[in-house]
C-alpha cells in the first residue's frame, strides 16, 4: 500500500528538481530569519544566491547538536513563537535539552510522513494501533499518534508503563498493529508468552524505532509474535519518527526525500562519501518552517542506495544502521558497536538477546564483560554444559568483534528491560 504515489514513486529527475526548488527556498528563509545561519554563511562567504540547487549543497556549513544546545531554547527557530504550535525536547546525556518547535504545517507534514510509513507497514484505516512509545516531550508518542490518526486508523494511546494492561487491551480490542521501541516489543512478546495469551492476539504489524536494532532481532520478533515488523527512523531535530521507513523487502529504509535531503559524509574529513560508502548521515530539511536545519549531522552511520526498490518506490534507501557514531565504543583500539553483540547472540540462537556490556580498565588495559541471561530453555542441569555455553558465546563474540570478552551468565530477567531506548553499555572507564 503506497500512501502518496506521486511523491514516493516520482522519477529521480523530478525528485532532484523538487528538492532543488525547495532547498533554494529554505536557504533564503534561514538566511533572512535566523541570525545563526546568516552569520555562519557570511563567515564562509556564501549568499543565498550561491545556492541554485542540490548540487550546491556542499557549499553550506554543517549544523550540529551543539549548535542547537548553544541556541537553547528557541534561538534557531525561523518563525515567530506565535506560529509555533508544538514543542518537543530530547534530554541530552549532558547538559541542556535539545528543543524543537513545529508550526501547524510542520505537524501536518509530519503526519503525512508517518501515514506513508504506516501504509508501508500495511496499516490503514481498518486497523487498531496501540502507540506504546512514551507520550510527552519525546517525539515518538505524539508523532505516531497524529500520523496514525491522519491515516484513519483507530489509535489507542497506550504510552509506556503497564505491559500487562497493554496486552489485555491488545487482546480485548483486537489490536492489529503496535508502535514502540524494538526492545520493548521483545519484552511485550516475553510477557505475552508468560500470560499464555498468544493465540488470542490479532497483531499483524509492528512499527519499531527510536533505537538501532538488527535484522536478526527483527526476525526474532516476527517469529515470536507471528507478525511483520518494520524499522521506522527519525530524530527529533529533523522531525521525529517518519523521516525514513523500512518496506517489506527490508533492503533499506526509504527516506522521504521530498522533505528531507540526505547526504553521507566521511566523519573524519567531513567530505562527501563515495556513492554506496558507509558514513555519517546528514540531513537538510526542505519544508520545515519552525526549525529548518541545514546539513544537520545526525551521528548515525549508514550508506545510501538510489536504485528503485522492488516495492516500486523510487525514494532513496538508507541501509540499516551500523549504529551511531556516538554509540561506538573503542575497546582495545577496536571499534565495537553494541548491535554487533546482539547480532552474534541472536545468530547463536542459544541465548536471549538481553545483554549488558561492561567496559572497564584494569592496569591500563580495556576489559569487556558481557552479561548474558540464562533463559530457562537453554538451562541445563550440569555445570559442564553451562561452561560450554559461555565458551560458545565467548567464541561467537570474539568472531564478531575481533576482541575477546569475559562472558558472565546471569539469571533471567536481571538485565533491565527498558520501555524506551534499551541501555546496553556500562562504560566504567569514563570514571577513571
Amino acid at each position: 500500500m503506497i500512501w502518496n504515489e506521486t511523491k514516493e514513486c516520482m522519477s529521480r529527475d523530478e525528485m532532484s528538481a523538487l528538492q532543488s526548488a525547495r532547498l533554494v527556498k529554505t536557504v533564503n528563509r534561514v538566511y533572512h530569519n535566523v541570525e545563526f545561519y546568516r552569520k555562519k554563511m557570511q563567515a564562509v562567504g556564501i549568499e543565498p544566491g550561491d545556492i541554485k540547487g542540490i548540487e550546491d549543497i556542499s557549499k553550506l556549513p554543517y549544523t550540529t547538536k551543539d549548535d542547537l544546545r548553544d541556541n537553547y531554547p528557541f534561538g534557531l527557530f525561523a518563525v515567530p513563537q506565535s506560529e509555533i504550535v508544538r514543542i518537543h525536547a530530547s534530554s541530552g546525556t549532558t547538559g541542556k535539552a535539545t528543543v524543537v518547535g513545529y508550526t501547524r504545517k510542520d505537524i501536518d507534514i509530519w503526519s503525512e510522513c508517518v501515514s506513508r510509513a504506516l501504509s508501508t507497514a500495511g496499516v490503514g484505516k481498518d486497523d487498531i494501533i496501540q502507540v506504546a512509545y512514551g507520550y510527552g516531550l519525546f517525539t515518538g508518542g505524539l508523532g505516531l499518534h497524529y500520523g496514525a490518526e491522519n491515516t484513519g486508523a483507530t489509535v489507542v494511546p497506550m504510552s509506556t508503563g503497564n505491559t500487562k494492561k497493554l496486552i489485555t487491551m491488545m487482546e480485548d480490542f483486537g489490536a492489529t498493529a503496535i508502535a514502540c521501541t524494538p526492545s520493548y516489543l521483545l519484552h511485550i512478546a516475553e510477557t505475552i508468552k508468560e500470560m499464555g495469551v498468544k493465540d488470542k492476539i490479532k497483531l499483524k504489524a509492528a512499527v519499531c524505532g527510536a533505537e538501532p536494532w538488527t535484522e536478526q532481532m527483527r526476525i526474532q520478533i516476527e517469529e515470536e509474535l507471528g507478525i511483520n515488523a518494520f524499522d521506522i527512523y527519525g530524530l527529533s531535530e529533523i522531525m521525529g519518527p517518519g523521516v525514513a521507513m523500512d518496506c517489506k523487502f527490508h533492503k533499506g529504509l526509504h527516506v522521504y526525500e521530498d522533505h528531507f535531503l540526505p547526504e553521507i559524509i566521511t566523519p573524519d574529513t567531513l567530505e562527501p562519501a563515495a556513492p554506496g560508502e558507509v558514513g555519517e548521515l546528514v540531513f537538510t530539511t526542505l519544508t520545515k518552517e519552525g526549525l529548518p536545519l541545514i546539513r544537520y549531522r545526525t551521528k548515525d552511520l549508514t550508506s545510501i542506495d538510489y536504485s528503485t526498490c522492488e516495492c516500486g518506490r523510487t525514494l532513496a534507501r538508507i541501509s540499516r544502521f551500523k549504529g551511531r557514531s556516538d554509540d561506538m565504543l573503542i575497546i582495545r583500539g577496536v571499534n565495537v558497536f553494541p548491535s554487533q553483540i546482539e547480532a552474534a547472540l541472536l545468530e547463536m540462537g542459544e541465548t536471549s538477546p538481553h545483554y549488558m556490556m561492561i567496559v572497564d580498565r584494569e592496569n591500563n588495559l580495556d576489559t569487556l564483560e558481557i552479561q548474558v541471561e540464562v533463559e530457562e530453555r537453554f538451562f541445563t542441569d550440569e555445570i559442564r554444559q553451562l561452561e560450554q555455553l559461555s565458551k560458545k558465546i565467548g567464541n561467537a563474540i570474539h568472531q564478531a568483534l575481533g576482541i575477546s570478552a569475559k562472558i558472565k551468565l546471569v539469571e533471567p530477567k536481571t538485565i533491565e528491560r527498558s520501555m524506551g531506548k534499551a541501555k546496553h553499555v556500562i562504560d566504567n572507564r569514563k570514571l577513571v
Partner: protein
Amino acid sequence: MYVKQISIFVENRKGRLEDVCTCLDENGINIKSIILADTNEYGLIRMIVSDVDKAKLVLKEAGFSTIITNVVAIKFPHTKGMLKKLLEIFSEEELNIEYMYGLSTTTEEAIIVFKTSDNEKAVNLIENKGGEYGIAIIEESNI
C-alpha cells in the same frame, strides 16, 4: 523408578540461596535434600522437594530458571565399603556418575541420590546386582 530433582540457576550473589528457600517455604514446599554446585560466578542448586511441579511453578514466578531432571535414589546398609561396592558395579559397566549426594542416613541405612551417564542402565544394574549387597532402588513416594 526415578526421583524428580529440581535444579535452579543462581548467580553468586548474596542471599540468592536464601531467596530460593524462602520462596519454597512460603509455598509450603519441603526441601528433603539440597546440594549446591558452584563456580566463581554462578551456582546450581539441586534439590529433592515435596512437590517438584509446584516448586518449578513458584520459582519460575519468582524469576528463576529451573529444570527438572530424573535422578536415581537408592538405599543401602550403612556398613563399611558399601559405596565402594556400588561404584565398582558401575565402573565395570563403564557407567559414569555425573553427581551424587546424600538424602538421609540412619545408623542402619543410607539413602543417596545420583545421576549417571545412563540412568536406565544404572537402574537395571542395581536391580540385577544390587540385591546381594542389600542395595535397592527407592521410589519417589517412599522418600
